[in-house]
Each structure stands twice: as C-alpha cells, then as structure tokens.
C-alpha cells in the first residue's frame, strides 16, 4: 500500500506492506537509522519518536497508521549544526554511556518537557519510565533533562 508521512517536515512516500512497522519504514525505507530498535516488544523505548508532536514507540505502530500524519525523529531535532537544547544538555551532562537508548531518551524527554515544562526530579523519573537504559545511566539522564528544563524556564522568565 502507498503511504505518505511527513517526516521531519518533509513529505516522504513509500510502498509498504500493511504489516510494516513504522520503525522499519523509517530505518529501512527512509534510511533514518537514528531511531533504534531495542526490545521490539514496546518495553524499552529506544524507538521513541514523535507522532503529531507526542512521544510514541515506533515499534508499536504500523507505518500505515502514520499515513498522512507528521512524525519527528531524532534526526529532525537539531537545526543544522546547532543541537536541540535537549541534545546539548545530554552532551553537557554526560547523559549517555553506550548511547543506544539516547535517541529514544531524548525524544521522550522533549515530549515530557512539552507536557510539563517545570518537572521535579520525580516527575522526570516517572515521565521516562517508558525508556530503559541498559547501562543504568539514569542519574545523568535525569540530570540532563532537569538542566534542559531549568534552562528553558529560566530563558522564558
């Protein structure tokens, strides 16, 4: 079947089997391999992207379900060479170890701050419960998100 998805602001079309998962469409058809596949069972969040601005696990959506919708992947966050503030905060706070969970963590964290711009540490920990870090590097991930929140709420004051 023919689908058209707006990916990172650009309309992308493809011919997919109905059973094609969104993450496979992004990675294998569009070559956007920043979105990782971790567990394949909706648990780990490595494949987190935004669908219509909200975080979603792209291993648990059919590409067909995204037909006509707007999707953002990790590749769509930076503005050219300028990192998205959340990416920069992960870098500055060493919010990654092996880096495998990082694209999903960053996408989940951006969605989290959209919904709650001024979260407590507990809010961040609970808000990221859909994302697993097998290095168990949660401390610096939470620190990164809190730093980004402090930066943006400070800037808007």
């Amino acid at each position, binding site marked *: *079947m023919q689908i058209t998805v707006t990916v990172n602001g650009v309309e992308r079309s493809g011919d997919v*089997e*109905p*059973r*094609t*998962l969104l993450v*496979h469409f992004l990675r294998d058809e569009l070559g956007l391999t920043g979105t990782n*596949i971790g567990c*394949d*069972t*909706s*648990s780990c*969040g490595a494949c*987190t992207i935004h*669908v219509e601005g*909200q*975080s*979603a*696990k792209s*291993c*648990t*959506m*059919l590409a*067909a*379900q995204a*037909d006509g919708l707007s999707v953002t992947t990790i590749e769509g966050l930076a503005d050219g060479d300028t990192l998205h503030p959340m990416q920069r905060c992960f870098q500055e706070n060493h919010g990654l170890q092996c880096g495998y969970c990082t694209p999903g963590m960053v996408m*989940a964290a951006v*969605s*989290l701050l959209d*919904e709650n711009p001024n979260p407590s540490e507990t809010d961040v920990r*609970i*808000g990221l*419960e*859909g*994302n697993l870090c097998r290095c168990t590097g949660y401390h610096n991930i939470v620190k990164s998100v809190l730093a980004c929140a402090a930066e943006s709420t400070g800037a808007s004051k």
Partner: protein
Amino acid sequence: MRRRINWGVEVIPASFEYLRADSVDVAIAALTEHGDEAKLLAGGHSLLPLMKLRLAAPSVLVDVGRLDDLRYINDAGDHIAIGALTRHRDLEISTLLASAAPLLSHAAGHVGDPQVRHRGTLGGSLAHADPASDLPAVILAMGGTLVATGPNGSREIAASEFFTGFLESALAPDELLTEIRIPKLDAQGWSFQKFNRRAQDWAIVGVATVRANGSTGVALVNMGSTPLLATAVMDAVKSGATAADAAALANEGTEAQSDINASSEYREHLARVLVRRSLEESGLA
C-alpha cells in the same frame, strides 16, 4: 559460514489486509463482511504486541484510529460520555474528569508509560478485556455502561456484564464499542492501588475503589480471567464492616493465576492488603 541474524524478522506481524475506516458505518460494514477474520485496530497498544508475537493473526485489520468523532469527553447531564477512541492521555488531563470522575483520570495516568498513553485508547483497552489492564476495573468499580454499535444500531451493556472471559467481551463480532458512560457520582472518596515490581509493568494486583451515594464499588485487577467486582467486600462495607474486616473478604469469588510475577497465594495476599489500603484511602475507617 556465518549465520545471518536479522532481528527484525521474528517480531513483525503475520500478513493481513489493512482497511482504514473513515466512519463508524464503514467499520461496521467491514466487520459484517469479514466476521471473525477481522479485528479492530484503535491505538494498537494491546493488539499489535500480540500480533508481533503471532499470538494473534487476524487476516483483516480495520483501523478505526482516525474516527475522531469518537474522541470526546462530554458532560451528558446525569453521566459523563466518553468516546471509545479517547486516548489515555486525554483522560489523564481532562479537567471534566478531574472533577467528575477523578478515579478514572488518575488511573489513566498510570497505564503503561507516556508513549503508551499517547496512543492507547479507553475503548481499545476495554474491548481487549485483559484482566491485567487498569481501566476495565476502574470502569467496573464506577458502574459504567458501554455502548456497542452494530449493523442494527446501538445497545447498552453494563460494565458488570461486559467482561465474559479471558480477553473476551460481550461485543458481537460485528459490533464496535463506541461510547463509555460513567455515572456522575458525588464521590466521597476513591482510590486506585496498583502493585507492580517494575516501572511500566502491568499490575500484579490492582484495586479500584469509589465510594459514593451510600455504596462502595471495589474492582480487582489481575485476580481472575476477567476484571472482577469484589462483591463480598462491597456487601460487607454496605453492612457497616470496617475496612480491615471487609478487606479480609477480598478473595471471595476470585481465581488468581500463578505466573512468572507471582503465585496465586501471593496475589491473594496482595488483594487483601491492597483492598484494605484502597478502602482506607477512600475514607472508610
């Protein structure tokens, strides 16, 4: 020769025909045509994981996820009317529910994780009829009514009649769950207890309680093949029992399973403890 491993291959669904319904009528027509071979797809967060594991393999998938006219939360006088395609996140942040049915909005905020709540729907969760899911028990405790629409119009089904077996509901193969009605309760107290070992897991045992208009609704998550009303507890509370005495009856009529997370005995223990906490949190002495 090296063995080639393609991790993606084992965890994609079996082939199916995909139909996107742009109206309730189209969805029902597709169900009527394809019968048992067809499954409805809403948010997909119960069905797609089963299909990826090949535990479900419908030959036709009817996508109702775009039926935005079934995505609403309305004050309908004596009840709150919720469209079946309303997502968990919509329930979680609804100001109407926060005042009129706080148990539901609170519990919706504990389903899965944020990504699941952005896509998963109330109707999908109820129609899937998983005894381990949170919201079926909540709707049971609140005495909700479900509206099913089929080729011959709509009918109401009491939540207490809806869950008929493990992953089985009273919906006919050609019916679509369209609306969920929650009586407007002047709640004196409510509580949602969810016990799990890891973030984002299903409840090992959960309890939903609402006390209103002189009666108490208590429903159990994961204590049998369906979500269950704890009728013995409810009757005891009605007769004036304390929270502790009523909670001792939490396992009457249950048939808890043993699995990797818990033995049935442990589940029964948890049910007693959580029912007591739930009654106390909802204001019963």
